[in-house]
């Protein structure tokens, strides 16, 4: 493997470790979202505050909600993969063209 590949591998492992380690080492926790923790903190310190507007649409269940979150990630991941694939294909094509023209130059002195 080239040095470049090793660096890539180390970066990926670093990202994975940042999330795996708290799960492995941390005390048992339900990992509630910070957004809902903040909402709870407000309800605790300001018990008389009533939200004055409600969601226009709420997913019927947590399954539907996580499905919609997955959909969001899938759309983003799909578009990102498409762009990176196209950029990579374009470079490969350009290199092939450059190689072809340079060999042609060698043949015709």
């Amino acid at each position, binding site marked *: 493997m080239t040095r470049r590949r090793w660096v890539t591998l180390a*970066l990926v492992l670093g990202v994975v470790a940042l999330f795996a380690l*708290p799960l492995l080492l941390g005390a048992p926790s339900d990992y509630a979202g910070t957004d809902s923790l903040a909402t709870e903190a407000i309800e605790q*310190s300001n018990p008389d505050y009533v939200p004055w507007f409600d969601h226009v649409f709420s997913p019927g269940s947590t399954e539907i909600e996580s499905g919609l*979150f997955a959909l969001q990630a899938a759309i*983003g991941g799909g578009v990102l993969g498409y762009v990176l694939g196209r950029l990579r294909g374009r470079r490969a094509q350009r290199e092939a063209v450059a*190689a072809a023209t340079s060999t042609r130059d060698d043949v015709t002195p």
Partner: protein
Amino acid sequence: MHIAEGFLPPAHAIGWTIAAAPFVVHGARAVVKEVRENPESTLLLGAAGAFTFVLSAIKLPSVTGSSSHPTGTGVGAILFRPPVMALLGTVVLLFQALLLAHGGLTTLGANAFSMAIVGPWAGYGAYRLARKASGNLLVGVFAGMAVADLATYVTTSLQLALAFPDASSGFAGAAVKFLGVFAVTQVPLAIAEGLLGVLLFRVLTVNARPELERLGVLERRPVDEDDDPTPTPTPAPAPTTSTDGEVTR
């Protein structure tokens, strides 16, 4: 960083909406201008938007025992300067407010202000500073991505402290409380986001060099930024295109 629907008093909700609106309008014009003047930017603009879309959908566990999501706004801020992200970030927040019951319409202004405006600008500033200090693109990218993420959550904490000051210790006490919820949890996520940004830019410097040079992210002459496997065999395209005299960033 999503302040839940209805969880900002009306005056605050309206105030943040008014504060965010000009940035978003300016950002929309920046996106239209970029696409019109440089149609070849569309691909990378899509990548910047998609990166924010993915990252803000994924909630990740943190050392504090709670979970939170990254923002991914640093990529677009570094590539296209921050105004573009004011629009792209707001689109993501609108999607989540309407379809996921996450965030909300009344808090869209405040959430856009933290994630689509303060985050990208703070990240962009950190990117410029770190890149200048280190002379290395990827060090700048790491700093820019991480700071854009963290600054977003710090802003949310301050917005909530402003709306719900502590009964005894006031704004400062509430700020400490909300920073404890948001900012501390966010530190490992911000580091991870910085690493993801470095991964993405390593791919881009190899595969999208012409765009990065045009956007001023990379210098025009072929410098060996990383251990780039391609010694750039293609000679620079003939400088006949008159449209190339774009503003240097």
